[in-house]
């Protein structure tokens, strides 16, 4: 997942978030069309802000031509400009410097057209009520905390359960989120996901993992879903895959096809089995393939598992494909060379590859100390491997080792 994220935003921009907040309740602010109130609002909120808005318009055009990662929100000219506080991306600073000077001139001519109200002019209460005092947003910040109370999109995302504190640490994500408009970009994406079968309570975790789905076009997403459907994944499977592997729908159809093909060929599974495997651990599709290939080599060549044994194990515990090579090697070395467990038993209980080495070690030594380390199924007092690694300590001590927990803890201090 992390590798993919880095691929998307391979360019490490400044961690600075440049404020660009969309305020969707703008209409409620300015209800009287071209009245004194509007002008007053403009002058009250400060010439700086408005001029920045103009600058950024030009800047954003330039930005489009230099094509930064996230696509900027659609802009309109004139009074329809919806930003209160704008600053350009640090990347297009040069373009801004070139573009800003003519923008300023047009801005000043605009101001000439609208007569500025006198500060001593009395205004009606109704009008006064409609002038909303907003806190001035910092033009640039290191955190989204400064914007979250002002931005509609961000506050709705927080209420959905998106962890902004995590997202703001990723490059470009915070700027991208600030440019979004909840009703325009976010809502339909979420509705789409809901139609797919992603549960509502999963949205927060989903968007925390993959905020980039909000910038993906719905047509593309639909294409990928129909590709999955064409591969005979049923509705539940697709819902499960999308919610467990949030980056799945950001992958192009060709890439998804390649990856499905990889598991199909590399493991020699039939189509049905491949589908089952990918449904059980969808992150196989979005993760990097190189570690999987390496792990398979380790299982085949270094450990000496047969092809059919490997297939059996992978279908039972798909996680062993993405486990760390080093960890798996250490665990198997201990099981096979020290505990003397044959390949056949490991094939039957592939859960051992999920267990921690320390846990296996101390339990084995404890059983050996008690004279109960008997892992051969044909002899009496047989202890199965999954019971050895998967039971919690209390159950292990009482049921398997037939001892007490304090005994076990005292034993661990003698290792």
């Amino acid at each position, binding site marked *: 997942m992390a590798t993919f994220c880095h691929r998307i935003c391979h360019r490490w921009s400044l961690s600075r978030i440049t404020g660009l907040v969309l305020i969707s309740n703008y209409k409620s602010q300015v209800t009287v069309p071209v009245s004194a109130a509007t002008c007053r609002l403009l002058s009250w909120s400060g010439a700086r802000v408005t001029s920045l808005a103009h600058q950024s318009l030009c800047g954003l055009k330039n930005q489009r031509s230099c094509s930064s990662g996230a696509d900027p929100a659609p802009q309109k000219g004139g009074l329809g400009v919806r930003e209160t506080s704008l600053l350009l991306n640090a990347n297009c600073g040069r373009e801004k410097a070139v573009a800003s000077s003519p923008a300023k001139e047009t801005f000043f001519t605009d101001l000439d057209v609208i007569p500025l109200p006198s500060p001593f002019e009395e205004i009606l209460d109704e009008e006064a*009520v*409609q002038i909303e005092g907003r806190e001035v947003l910092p033009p640039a910040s290191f955190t989204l905390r400064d914007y979250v*109370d002002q931005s509609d999109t961000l506050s709705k995302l*927080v209420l959905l*359960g998106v962890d902004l*504190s995590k997202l703001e640490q990723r490059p470009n994500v915070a700027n991208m989120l600030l440019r979004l408009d909840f009703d325009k970009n976010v809502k339909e994406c979420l509705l789409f996901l809901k139609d797919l079968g992603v549960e509502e309570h999963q949205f927060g975790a989903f968007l925390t993992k993959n905020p980039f789905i909000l910038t993906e076009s719905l047509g593309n997403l639909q294409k990928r879903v129909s590709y999955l459907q064409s591969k005979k994944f049923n509705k539940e499977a697709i819902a499960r895959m999308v919610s467990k592997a949030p980056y799945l729908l950001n992958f192009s159809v060709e890439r998804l096809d390649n990856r499905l093909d990889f598991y199909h060929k590399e493991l020699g599974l039939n189509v049905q089995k491949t589908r089952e495997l990918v449904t059980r651990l969808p992150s196989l599709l979005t993760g990097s393939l190189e570690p999987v290939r390496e792990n398979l080599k380790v299982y085949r060549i270094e450990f000496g598992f047969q092809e059919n044994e490997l297939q059996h194990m992978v279908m039972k515990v798909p996680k062993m494909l993405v486990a760390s090579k080093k960890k798996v090697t250490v665990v198997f070395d201990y099981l096979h060379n020290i505990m003397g467990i044959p390949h056949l038993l490991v094939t039957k209980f592939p859960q051992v590859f999920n267990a921690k080495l*320390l846990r296996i070690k*101390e339990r084995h030594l404890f059983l050996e100390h008690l004279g109960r380390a008997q892992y051969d199924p044909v002899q009496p007092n047989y202890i199965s491997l999954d019971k050895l690694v998967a039971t919690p300590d209390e159950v292990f001590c009482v049921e398997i080792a037939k001892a007490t927990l304090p005994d076990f803890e005292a034993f661990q201090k003698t290792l």
Partner: protein
Amino acid sequence: MSRSARSVARALQGLFSVYKPPGVHWKRVRDAVETNLLQELNSLKQPDARQLIRFLPVHADGESETETNLTVVKLPALADHPLVKGPEFVHLKVGTGHRLDVMSSGVFVLALGHGNKQLPELYNCHLTKDYTVKGFFGKATDDFSDMGRLVEKTTYDHITRDKLERIVAVIQGSHQKALLTYSGIDFKTQEAYELASRGLLRPMQNSPPIITGLRCVHFSPPNFTLEIQCLHETQKYLRRIVHEIGLELKSTAVCTHVRRTRDGFFTLQDSLIRTRWDLQSVQDALRGRGSKGKATLLESGLEPPAGETDRLQARGQRTTTGTLRTAQTGTS
């Protein structure tokens, strides 16, 4: 949930010991303890969000559109929402006492809060440490442990317990001499007599590794177990001792286990094993250490040098406390 995370974090002060399992680097042990504590602290009650005062327009039903009233509403600031603010505790300062290398296990001292300031004072006490060292005859490796590259194989049939104990006594004797030279005390004084008679002579500044007690507790060829009390040692040095014992016995030996059973006044009983590295156990361990009087330490004459004690008392901190096993058999 009753106590707030901040007050719990503020109470995490002092020294405690954990049991480091073999095969794990001490840094991973420290980090594991830190992560566990942080996780539990962040799940405790967090401070309330600030309240923002907002004027929200309210449209009354009977009135026309243009007439709007403002009501004052107190809303919790979204900027203080846990999802926006992030976890409250991201870092805890966990200091470490005398280190243990990867393959060795045993009592490993950690410090929290002002315990970090006590650590250098603990160093300056130059207290002895207890080790249990296991080894077997018949092999020699390049790093003196059983995991290293095999250098030599030898026979060990001629070794008896008597011969082993004789060598052990010789090594202890030579270290006794070193102890006297490095202790830096004039031997014609009453003070030296009193310290020596109680077995408390020890160097008060840096010195080469010194073994103050060494004895063989278990011998069944080729395996043997030694109990060592020493100062300023490294685990590698202890393995070398095993190797040298092997050479002196006209054979070779490698070391399989190095296990620290006592570090100063931290004993095996009150060190926490891997499954107990959580907030509750750490709190108990810190409290247990505090409740034990300082008297035992003073009684056994293992208090830090005079200046150190005064500074500690002036600061009103609990200093090095706890019971000390009578471990100074070697010097008496």
